[in-house]
């Protein structure tokens, strides 16, 4: 592997987190709250003035951190930023309380203030969240510290904390996405693995484009990536260590194809498809012992397996009924029970990190959809529709899906999109060029 690529997580400083004393009485259960429910909601207006630079070196970061926080929150579709030009009050000190009347006047319901200090190789970011209409600080102030290069991560952590306090759900901004970066014409596509922040920033390439790479997946701790590679000349599941970029071909058996790998929740096993003589079945590989277990044994196509968060079950797709449908079986293998019941074909099931939903790709009447259903197949909801939508991956909090959308025709190209599980807030993720097969990391530590 080329030395030109950056080891990914080595760049990321350990981010320390520490609580600051509240300025006012804590109002954890105050009235400022978004209940995320289905249906149309009015985005909550908030303001995030530039953070206060506490020394000269912090000047470059103070404004940028506020911009990333604002972008994270507005990007959810649940919040609306009151632009800085409309602000009446100026925040010049992190330790003084805010003038609630000035923020009320412009209808900012939440205000995030903060301060930044940079000394040498260390940046410290502090923030407070205020509930304007109840005139109280919401939760305690928090402080994050790391290296200046990791300033965007600290902004994401502030946004995660604000999101969590206001919605009561976990955040997802301090996370990474591994994906396939594409170039070249449709009949000569070049593909290489890349990772980026969830919002498209900080792209790093993990492989060159000398062989086809497909379907990368993060390990539960984000330190390894599984994918399918043609580097040996044949499709093989491959394990990459993200720090060193070292790769290893797994479960290699002559005359077989291995693909569609995914980690178990404990990171110790890999479930994947193995094809022999034209027939694909599911197998489990124990990474420690190298032991291989066959989970399904049918003449049909069994592929796209995904574990339940507790590791006890696996959802997968099979065409044993004649068309692609979704099934759930014990992680030890077996027949499985069919869960998809609607018209059309269902593939690429992915179990939500909360355990409550299965996201999938659906093909029906010439269109592709991303959808969700409960684990018993009930309450199916289609969230998107296009010429080709495929391969959903869950945000760490189970509220948002990212997927591939490809346009048609000779100039057709793939791009990454995200959508809320309510079906709202469809957005394209900015990437340098065409991109496919996203897989979300867990929330970073």
């Amino acid at each position, binding site marked *: 592997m080329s030395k030109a690529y950056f080891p990914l997580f080595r760049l990321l400083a350990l981010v320390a987190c520490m609580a600051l004393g509240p300025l006012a009485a804590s109002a954890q259960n105050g009235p400022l709250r978004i209940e995320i429910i289905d249906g149309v909601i009015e985005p909550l207006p908030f303001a995030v003035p530039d953070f206060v630079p506490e020394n000269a070196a912090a000047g470059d970061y103070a404004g940028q951190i506020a911009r990333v926080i604002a972008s994270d929150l507005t990007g959810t579709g649940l919040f609306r930023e009151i632009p800085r030009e409309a602000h009446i009050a100026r925040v010049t000190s992190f330790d003084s309380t805010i003038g609630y009347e000035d923020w009320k006047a412009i209808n900012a319901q939440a205000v995030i203030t903060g301060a930044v200090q940079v000394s040498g190789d260390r940046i410290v970011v502090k923030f407070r969240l205020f509930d304007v209409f109840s005139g109280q600080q919401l939760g305690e102030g928090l402080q994050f510290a790391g290296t200046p290069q990791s300033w965007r991560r600290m902004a994401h952590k502030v946004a995660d904390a604000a999101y969590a306090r206001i919605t009561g759900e976990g955040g997802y901004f301090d996370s990474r996405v591994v994906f396939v970066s594409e170039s070249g014409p*449709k009949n*000569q596509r070049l593909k290489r693995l890349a990772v980026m922040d969830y919002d498209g920033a900080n792209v790093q390439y993990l492989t060159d484009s000398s062989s086809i790479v*497909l379907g990368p997946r993060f390990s539960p701790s984000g330190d390894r990536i599984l994918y399918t590679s043609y580097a040996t000349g*044949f499709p093989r599941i491959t394990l990459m260590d993200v720090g060193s970029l070292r790769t290893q071909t797994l479960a290699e058996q002559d005359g077989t194809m291995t693909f569609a790998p995914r980690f178990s929740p404990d990171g110790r096993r890999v479930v994947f498809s193995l094809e022999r003589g*034209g027939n694909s079945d599911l197998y489990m590989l124990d990474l420690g012992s190298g032991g291989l277990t066959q989970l399904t044994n049918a003449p049909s196509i069994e592929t796209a397996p995904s574990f339940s968060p507790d590791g006890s079950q696996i959802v997968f797709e099979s065409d044993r009924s004649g068309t692609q449908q979704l099934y759930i079986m014990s992680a030890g293998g077996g027949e499985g029970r069919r869960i998809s019941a609607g018209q059309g074909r269902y593939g690429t099931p992915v179990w939500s990190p909360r355990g409550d939903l299965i996201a999938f790709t659906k093909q029906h009447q010439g269109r592709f959809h991303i959808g969700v259903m409960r684990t018993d197949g009930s309450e199916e909801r289609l969230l998107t529709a296009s010429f080709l939508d495929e*391969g959903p991956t869950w945000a760490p909090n189970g509220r948002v899906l990212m997927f591939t959308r490809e346009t048609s025709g000779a100039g057709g190209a793939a791009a990454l999109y995200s959508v809320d599980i309510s079906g709202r807030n469809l957005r394209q993720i900015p990437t340098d060029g065409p991109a496919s097969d996203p897989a979300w990391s867990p929330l970073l530590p």
Partner: protein
Amino acid sequence: MSLLPKAFLLVAALGLAACNNPDRFGAAGAGAGGAGGAGSGFIDTTGLGDPNDPTSIAHFNQRVGDRVLFPVDQHTLTAEGRSTLQGQAQWLNTNTSYAVIIEGHADEQGTRDYNLSLGSRRAAAVQNFLISQGVSAGRMRTISYGKERPIEVCSTEECYSKNRRAVTVLSVGAGS
């Protein structure tokens, strides 16, 4: 004896360095340059011989026919496909110094993993038919490209029908 190193040699011998499809240059050299393999459309065909020479690769590719097509989401051979494969088997049983890699492909109307499986079913259907016609299993390998390597780029049935294919790609090295 492994046929792959020899297949690799053929890639060099055919002067396919001009080919800019990187997948042709994996360590195992999967697919050694039949016109119409995964790299069809941009392969330098120099070295494939004269199609009028019945022992040449060019003859196999163009006159015998190196590929069979499949209906939507199917991997069973059509009558036309079986007829092409009978010709392939006859040629392979005569020209025994060639090994083959059978590439299975799908059109873009399907999910990535499923199409990989579907491509492997198509490649296996061809391999099984060739075995039934007396071609030694030891001369053949299969590979699926799923929907990764279309030869036609439009998004209509006219293109899809040509992309749903299995291509028999010749390489030297079966004589062992």
